[in-house]
Every structure is written in C-alpha cells, then in structure tokens.
C-alpha cells in the first residue's frame, strides 16, 4: 500500500508506514516503569505521519539514559558522545539538508556538558527537532543532581541538598532564539504525541522539553502536578489564539497584571484572560509563561513559541547554490592562482 508523499519529489510514492516499522530489533534496556518508554512509543506513533521514508530519518543522541533512544528506532541512528549530539546533528543536517534529523538528549547531556552546543544549534536555527528528556536527575550514573534539579534536592552527590539554582530549559531555548519551543510530559501521551508531531513538522530548530519520570532515582518529580488526577487543575495547556484556561471544566484562567501573571478563579469571560500567542517575534510572553510553576501557578504545557525564520542549513545551501550560478570555474585556475610564471 502506498500513499502520495508530502515530502520531497512531487510524484514520488512512499510506502505507508506504521508504528511497527519504526521498532528496531534491539532489546529495549530502560528500567521497567521509566518514562522513556512513553516517549519512545509516542515517537514511533508520530513518525509514520511524517510520510518520510525510514532511511531518510536520522536520530542523533548524546550520552545518558535518554540517549539510548536511537537504538530502538528503526531508522538511521547515531549514539554519539556526551553533550555533542547537537554539534553532530548540525554537521549532518548542513551536509545533507534533505535528511530529517532528530536530536535526543537529556537534562545533563543537553544542558550541562552539552549546553553550549545546544544553545548554538538553537540560535543557528538548524532544521532539526530536539527532544530533551528532563527527569531532573542523572540516571545512568546512578543518581547525582542535574542542572534542572531544584535547589536543596538531596541526591548522592548532595547529601545535604544541592546548593545550585536550576536552569529552566524553556527559558534557555527561548533566550537562544529557538523558533519552536514546547513542553510536554511523558504521562500525557496524547499531548506528547501531538507535540512531537508538530515539532517534527516545524521548519527550523524545534525544541521540546519532556517532563520524564525517573522512577528509580527521582520518582514522582512531576507527580504533584502531572499525575492524571490532579493534572487538569495544576497544568495549563497552551494553545495559540486561545485564552489560558485550566481546571476540570476550564473554570480557571490566567491573566496578566503588567509583567506578572495572575490566576483568576471563575473569570466572567475570556476577555479577562491572557490570550496565548506563539507567533510573536519577541520572547517576552513565552518568558513570562515559562516562569509559572506549581504550586503558585499551573505548569504550562504546549507550544510556547512557533515562528518562521531562515534555517542555517538552508542559508548555507543557498550560498553554495548562488555561488554556482556563475559558470563553473575550473579547478585548474584555482590551483594556479592569480599569478604564474613559466620556466622553459
């Protein structure tokens, strides 16, 4: 069975793929109950919808639990070195812009050892999708605090509690100039799947933070607001053009007082509430929203920002194409240089 491709050549027909086509033959080796399983499953469900042949998709990862991800997806995959996946993906995508590239990283890999590379991938607007699994802990090294662990968190490497302020991945991505910034959570599979799909279709650097539960070293890190029974009251789903409403019956809302968000219980109408806008050029609004945290506020999930900008890989390719519009120069002339002399 085939379907018309939405990607690449006009009349090209590609097989209609299913989730199973993206399951590799490798045995999955995450701890039972790990949030990673959900992210993998949602990704495998998302990929067929992209209508891209398997062989044109590459998953690049760094080091850490999350970075084992590429082994389990039946596409091309590169499990690289700690923190460097964004740099490798940048080279890969710049060399071959026609490929679809995902970067899988974690809070340690992407924000600590690889923070610099991630920042530069986002500011360059390389056309790749970055999925950052944020479990606020180092899992593979068995339980040290991470750059997103809250201050005071007691871990093996901080027996009296950490003395470091955490980094907010959403703020970092916005500040770096990411053109697509979103957040989802492992336990809300529907939201996660749709967020991944939207991110994958974004042209430019797409950054998705996924709250991911590490049931061994940081179990319940997000439970207070992300568990199914409390989620509707303690998280707010961001939707472009819609007022910020939350609660079981969407009975509550968020409004802005100057730069300060406020919760409104039972607002009279939507007009009182903040209307979400993902398309603003400046990052003021998503920055304010990113500052909302439980228990003072519902935690925002969804797309913070989604704008169109020229991509790095596209601009690099454009310069090559423009340079080649002129008649092809002879390599011999280049080697000879501007000035030669003959010896007889």
């Amino acid at each position, binding site marked *: 069975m085939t379907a018309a491709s939405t990607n690449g050549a006009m009349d090209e027909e590609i097989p209609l793929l299913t989730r199973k086509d993206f399951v590799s033959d*490798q045995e999955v080796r995450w701890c039972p109950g790990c949030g990673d399983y959900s992210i993998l499953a949602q990704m495998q469900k998302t990929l067929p919808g992209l209508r891209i042949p398997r062989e044109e998709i590459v998953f690049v990862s760094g080091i850490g639990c999350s970075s084992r991800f590429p082994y389990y997806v039946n596409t091309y995959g590169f499990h690289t070195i700690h923190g460097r996946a964004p740099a490798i993906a940048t080279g890969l995508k710049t060399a071959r812009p026609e490929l679809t590239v995902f970067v899988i990283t974690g809070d340690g890999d992407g924000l600590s050892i690889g923070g610099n590379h991630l920042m530069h991938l986002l500011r360059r607007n390389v056309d790749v999708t970055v999925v950052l699994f944020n479990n606020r802990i180092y899992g593979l090294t068995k339980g040290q605090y991470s750059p997103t662990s809250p201050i005071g968190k007691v871990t093996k490497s901080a027996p009296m509690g950490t003395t470091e302020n955490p980094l907010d991945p959403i703020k970092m991505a916005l500040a770096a100039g990411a053109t697509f910034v979103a957040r989802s959570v492992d336990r809300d599979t529907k939201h996660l799947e749709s967020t991944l799909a939207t991110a994958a279709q974004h042209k430019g650097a797409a950054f998705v933070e996924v709250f991911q539960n590490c049931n061994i070293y940081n179990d319940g890190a997000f439970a207070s607001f992300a568990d199914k029974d409390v989620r509707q009251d303690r998280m707010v789903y961001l939707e472009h053009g819609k007022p910020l409403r939350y609660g079981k019956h969407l009975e509550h809302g968020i409004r802005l007082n100057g730069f300060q968000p406020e919760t409104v219980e039972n607002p009279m109408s939507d007009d009182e509430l903040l209307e979400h806008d993902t398309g603003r050029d400046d990052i003021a609004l998503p920055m304010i929203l990113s500052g909302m945290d439980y228990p003072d506020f519902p935690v925002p999930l969804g797309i913070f920002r989604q704008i169109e900008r020229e991509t790095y890989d596209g601009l690099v390719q454009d310069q090559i194409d423009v340079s080649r519009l002129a008649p092809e120069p002879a390599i011999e002339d280049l080697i000879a240089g501007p000035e030669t002399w*003959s010896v007889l």
Partner: protein
Amino acid sequence: MTTEIESPLSEAITTRDRVTIRFAGDSGDGMQLTGTQFTRTTAVYGNDLATLPDYPAEIRAPTGSLPGVSGFQLSFSSNDIHTPGDNPDALVAMNPAALKTNLGDLIPGGLLIVDEGEFNATNLRKAGYDSNPLEDGSLAPYRLLRLDITTNNAAALDGLELGAKERFRSRNFYALGLVLWLFSRPLDTVVRWATDKFQRNPVVLEANLRALRAGNAFGETSELVHERYEVPPADVAPGVYRHISGNEATALGFVTASHLAELPLFYASYPITPASDVLHELASFKRFGIKTMQAEDEISAVCAAIGASYAGQMALTGTSGPGLALKSEGLNLAVMAELPLVILDVQRAGPSTGMPTKTEQADLLQAMYGRNGDSPVVIIAPSTPGDCFWTAIEAFRIALKYMVPVIMLSDGYLANGSQPWLIPKLAEIPPVEWRHADLSRVSHAYERDPDTLARPWAVPGQAGLEHRVGGLEKSYETGDINYEPGNHHKMTLTRAERVAKVVNDIPDLEVTGPQEGDLLLLGWGGTYGAITSAGERARAEGKSVASAHLRHLNPFPANLGEVLSRYDKVMVPELNNGQLSVLVRAEFLVDAIPFNKIAGQPFKIAEISGKIDEVLGLSGPFEFEF
C-alpha cells in the same frame, strides 16, 4: 634629509647565488606585507626561495616596544634551496626596537638599512638603548645605510589628502621600493598587486605607489647607495609556477581532493592561530560546493565534521595543538564508529596556549596517543609549503579507503612560509576513491572489506541499511552493542590492524645520500629543508651522512627499520623535546640520538651541522646560541 654611508661601498652590481634578507619593524609597520611583496616579485623573477614570517601574537603590541617587533625573512637563490636561510645578509630595521631584536642575527659585514627618522629619544628608550646606536659606533661591523624614510616618504606624498597617520603607514612601500632597487628587481609585480588591492581607495593607492617609486628613486639617484646585487633566476624544472604558502597549499589540496573524488567537502573549524587561514580560504571556495562552518568551539567543529562524515561527505576539521586536545573525544568517536575524517593540526609552540605564532612540531605524541583507550589513527605530515597540497589529498585518500581518521600535522613554519611551486597537472594526480555502501555489495553496515578491514560506508538515504552506530563497543559480526570480553579484544586488534594495513598504500622511505654509512638524519614534517640542507653540507665536506624524511608517522613506511639498520648512528632532529625519537626507539629498538630545539623557531642549518659534528666525534658538545 640626512643620508650617509658609513662604510665604503663598491659601485658595481654584484652577482650572488643566494641572498637572505630580513624586514623588521613595528607590528603596525606592515613588514609582513613588505616581505610578501618582495617575495612575490622575486618568485616571478624566477629565483628559488623560502620565507619565514615571524610576528607577535598581539595584533598591535605597544608601538615601538621590543615585543611588538614583526619580522619577515626570505632567502632567494639561483640554486635549489630548502630553507629561509640561517642568518640574513641584509636587514631592514624600521625602528630601534627592530634593530635591537634582529641585529644579532645579521652576518658580520652585512647590509643594514635603518629608518633614522625613527631613532628619536622616545623610541630609543622603548627599545632599551642607552645611547643611539647610529651614533655610538656600535654598528661599525656592518655596512650601514641610514636614511630618514619617514621624512623622505612624507615629502613624496605632498599634496595628497592624507593625515599624518596614513602618510606614516606607507613607509613600508618606500622601504620596499629601495630594497627592490638594491636587488635589481622591477616594480611591476608590486604595482599590479597594489592597483588591484587598493582599487577602491585611490588616495591610498596613489600614496603607496608614490612611496614605492620614491624609495626606488632614492636608490637610483642619491648616489649614496653604491652597491646593488643581482641573484640570477634559478635553474629549476620546466613548467608553470606560482608562489604558495603552506596554508594556501593545504586548502587547495583539500578542494582538489573533493574535486577528484566528486564528493562534497564539509569543513568545520574554530578560529585558531595558525590554522585560521585554511578556514578563510575554504570559505571562499563555495563555488566548488564546499561548505564551511565556523563552529562554536573546537569540540563542535570536530563533531560537526563527524556528522558530515556520517552523512557520507568528505569531512574535515582544522585546528592547532590546543584545539587537537579538545577534539580528542570526538576523534575517538570517529575511531570507534569507523568513520572517515581528516583532522588538520597546524602545530604551534605549546604546551597550553604556548606561543601561538611560533612554530613547533610537538603534537606528534598527542596525535599518536592523546585519546582514551587503544585508539590508533593514521598520521601524516607535509615537508614543505607546497607539499601541503599533496599531503591534504593523501589524507583523504587514506581516510576514505580505510574508513579511519587521519591527522595531518602541518606547522606554523610550513603554514606561513612560502615557496615557488610547480603547478601540478590535474590529470596527473591519482584519483581519490570512495564508495557508499549499498545492498548489492553488503548485507549490513558492519560487513568488513577483507583487504582493508574497513566497514562499509552506509549512509542515510540508503534503504535497507538503516543501522545504529555509536561510541559503545560493537560486535565484530553485527555492529550491535557488545560487551563480551573476546569481542572487545578482537575489535581493539581489528582497529589497530586496519591502521597498520595503510602501510600497503604508502611508499618505502627514500634516503638522500649514501645508502649506508656513519650517520642517518631522520626527520619528519617541516624540518625537511634544514635537515636536507645539513645533510648536503655534510656530504660536501666529505662526511658519510644521509638524510631521510618521514611523511607517514603512523604507520611508518614498511622499510623504515631496515633503513635505520644500515647506519652506525641515527640522529633525529625535531622541534620538540623528543617525540619521533621515542617512537623510533620503541618500535625498532634503535639507539636513535634525539636532537631537540624547542625555541619556537625552525632549525638553522648550522645547528644541525654542529650536532652532526658532535655525533661524528669531530667536535665537542653542540650548544644552541639563542
């Protein structure tokens, strides 16, 4: 205008077969440009030549200070020469600091040209002179030509709309004009260059041309310069030549490799002295399909290149020693993932930041061993600026055939030094071959070639070869993650054997001089010129001395051990504290004698000659005179 000659000069044009000249001035005086322009004229004239630019790391050190002195030495000859000369025959000193830092190198009786306009109290004090050397008789051993270049030049620019600063800046053209006259060289090459360079700034162009001609006319008319020199063209192989620096040749070599392979080149690099020029050159070659990326750091540069290699393109990163240190981890990923990658290291004096603009060849052991685990890579090194072209092509030829990282060890001396270069004919350059995997030849991405042990280059886009690679140890058979003891043992040996097999693609080491005898000089990289010249000199003196130069450092040529065994003694001159000597001793159990200079400067021929005499028992212990 004050000019006088303190030593009598004859009036004839003297023919010399070799002259070494050094231009020295403040780093803002344009000495590199002056030297380069004299070099180009000399090259076009047909001399063989070699150059040695020597400048401070600071873009503008304090004006007039000793650390701010910038120098450019070139040696040109009617014979085949290999080095920029040990000691200059002529020195141009644009200020007291330049005189102070360079005079010691000038040969006794050498020609000394100074801009006396700059020998004022302030500049003398900055240079640490208690008395004016132009007046105190301390320059008596030299033939001194003193003239007020600053004032003469300003006068020549009368009427031009230029500030005092701009007038001062064209002094170097005045000096250049004078020196061109002294060495009987035409002005047209410089005029052509300047006309092109300053076409958008007619006033500056006019100033520079006026300065050039005024300096030239000074020689012609002052009757104060009584001696001119002529160095006839060299008798070199027929063909079409150009002037080329090592970094230019390197960049051209990589472009040519891409052209020959018909595969796009991707270059990622972080700016670093003395490798940045390669980035500048390659960034201007977009019309040849070359993509360059100025990465956020050295690590990103090597990783981006690895990404391009994984994507199936010719992947290149360039750096210097400190950057190679940062790239170790990435390099090791390429070793483990068995991906072709070329790493250019334009070595400079270390450790740490060291002396960024000074040359050294002290990264050999870093290239060899500077990674975790048993991690062999191929290492090759060019021997001359022009040879950088050929080495760059060979680096890719090996990387693509064996699916290995190849480190090319250039150095600051080669990178910035220049020579006349016989332009190669494209059709005579052997092809650069590669192959992406497809299902008609292999069934999976780790099915090795039995000859090279290379795994197939299975690149995204190829249906049916989807696979996962990474830095974890992999099964020899399938490429899947594998921690079994026997497999890791086998894979480690396989990675080593694959690099060892490169020996099948490299020629035997050739010896210059007697095929057996008292002493073999064994060198590598940028020391080729000095070592070869010292060998020639020794043989001319009747000594049994041969020289051999290694282009392949890992693996070594197949016959190296046999060559070493044919000489009573083996001496290894290196610009480091003993690195090749360690490798040679370890591999061949030969009692190689290290000869090490770690001064940020290339060898002088005389230094190697001095050590040869010591080793042959003809003199006492050799000591450097720094």
